[in-house]
């Protein structure tokens, strides 16, 4: 188990090197002069040149890259062109909001999705199963921004039960609408995956063995079947957590949620390269890290995965 985790952590290193090169080159290709972004219109060519030299943007790309990597190794993501603030502080301010929203959405999709999936698998072809199938189909089809706006109009404007946008004082009522919106598609997927893997697992020989032992129906379903069925579901939720932590641009924009998705979105519009690169690197790191956690959970759920690099098969 220890070697497995170590191996997975070492695999992260090339990913990070690759992603920094890619991002840096991409941002470098954009024909935008950072010096012009920073200085007011009408700045003298001399002033622009001075700034370029000071920032090093007149140097070849590999020199700039090396400089950036050295900075990055010290945990410094650079300074925003627009806000004249360190990228670290901008991200530190906005990122927690995205994480909180992501976890709220994951919470909703895990609970609702898995529960609906189990119900519809256990009561296959019943009214509840049909209800789950129809509603998940609808949820998958509705565009997120439209669903978000509908809920804003319905629960916010017409009924006035919940705040329409923003984070307010950060209390739960502000989370409900954006989290539901963000979780909508994933909830439907989780329900579908849970249903199909449960049905699949229930046809296995070991389920028959469990019944033959005289276990109760609940024990067979919630112990023997569920643990096996959870493997693909947890993979999906984990990947989804990684995606959601990458900021939910649509949802954050509709609900004016002060998160990282919206920050990067605005930075792209403003050609604010340090924020875009810094923000993306952080997101990639988070994504890779979440996947690592998922794989570890995976290994705990399924003992066969632990074999790699661990003890061999005992015959």
């Amino acid at each position, binding site marked *: 188990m220890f070697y497995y985790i170590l191996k997975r952590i070492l695999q992260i290193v090339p990913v990070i090197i690759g992603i920094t090169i890619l991002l840096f080159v991409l941002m470098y290709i954009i024909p935008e002069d950072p010096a012009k972004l920073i200085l007011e219109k009408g700045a003298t060519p001399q002033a622009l040149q001075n700034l370029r030299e000071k920032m090093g943007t007149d140097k070849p790309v590999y020199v700039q890259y090396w400089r950036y990597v050295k900075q990055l190794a010290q945990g410094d993501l650079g300074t925003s062109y627009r806000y004249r603030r360190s990228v670290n502080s901008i991200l530190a301010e906005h990122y927690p909001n995205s994480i909180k929203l992501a976890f709220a959405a994951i919470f909703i999709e895990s609970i609702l999705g898995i529960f609906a999936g189990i119900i519809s698998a256990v009561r296959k072809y019943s009214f509840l199963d049909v209800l789950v199938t129809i509603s998940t189909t609808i949820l998958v089809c509705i565009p997120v921004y439209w669903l978000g706006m509908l809920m804003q109009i319905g629960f916010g404007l017409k009924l006035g039960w919940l705040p329409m946008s923003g984070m307010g004082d950060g209390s739960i009522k502000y989370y409900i609408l954006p989290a539901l919106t963000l979780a909508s598609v994933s909830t439907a997927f989780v329900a579908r995956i849970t249903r199909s893997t449960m049905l699949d697992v229930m046809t*296995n*020989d*070991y389920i*028959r*063995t*469990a*019944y*033959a*032992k*005289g*276990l*109760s*129906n609940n*024990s067979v379903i919630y112990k*023997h079947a569920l*643990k*096996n069925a959870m493997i693909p579901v947890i993979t999906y939720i984990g990947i989804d957590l990684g995606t959601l932590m990458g900021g939910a641009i649509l949802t954050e924009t509709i609900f004016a949620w002060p998160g990282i998705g919206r920050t990067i979105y605005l930075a792209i519009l403003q050609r604010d390269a340090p924020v875009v690169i810094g923000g993306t690197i952080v997101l990639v790191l988070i994504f890779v890290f979440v996947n690592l956690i998922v794989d570890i959970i995976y290994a705990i*759920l*399924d*003992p*066969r995965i632990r*074999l790699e690099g661990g003890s061999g*098969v*005992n*015959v």
Partner: protein
Amino acid sequence: MANNLQEKILEVKNLKTYFHTDAGVVKAVDGVNFDLKRGETLGIVGETGSGKSITALTILGLIPIPPGKVESGEIIFEGQDLLKCKISNLKHFRGNRISMIFQDPMTSLNPVFNIGNQLIEAIQAHQNLSKKQSYDKALELLDMVGISDRKKRMKSYPHEFSGGMRQRAMIAMAIANSPSILIADEPTTALDVTIQAQILELIDGLKKKTNSSVILITHDLGVIAKYAERVMVMYAGKPVEFASVNDIFYRPLHPYNLGLIGSVSKLNEEKKERLKPIKGTPPSLIDLPKGCTFALRCKFAIKPCWDSFPPTIEEEQNHFVACFRAKEFLNGSLKRE
């Protein structure tokens, strides 16, 4: 015969299990009758698809419903009809009074729980024991089935076991609550030959030690000859011959059984003969022919065979056959060749 005096522990009467599929009704088990006595081993032989396993699964109510359905019959166990028993009550019999060992130990154990967990669970399902007591009992069971290094094995997962060890672990689970009947559904089919003998010896030894009964389902006549006391031969969902193991091998009265014996190699015969396979394949269980299901492949078939399925008749004492020509085999007017 001494067997007659023994108490019947299980009686299956006119059992019919059909599967209602889109292609039609599959008559997997179609009128099976047999009884099992305390302490005996009853063999059920037949080709793949002859209904052996479905018969066994029906006894424990493990048929998937739908598409499966028990159409008629009685399964009397300890004076109670299991077919009239609610599914929720059946669990008191399963794994407790009647246990089952399955064909493929590779897939019959849950891959995500360790052996100890699955073993203790089998114990606690029927016995009110503390954690510690169940653990000790599990260790004892592993000892009984010949698994060494038990404390470590309790923590092992099924994939860390070899096929033979998995089957031993399955047997340990099956005998956890000292059942009166152990159903072994092709327990050695998935194992290699050297392990097969060990597993069968183990089952036989445990049977003798606990005076329980065994239903041994197999298509291996060698296994039947060695371990079974009485044998039921099944073909296309119906029992065609039911007799003591000696009668089955030395006085076969059904052409299908004759064919089965003819297709086994005999090492002790001086004259080397070619094996005689039974020609053709079993009929589809969906559209069974009107007459005898074996008529198509039977070289002794006569006109009545095509009109109706022959009734099961006790041709000799305790020798039941469903064949119109059995009497001719018996009085010698028809050669078995």
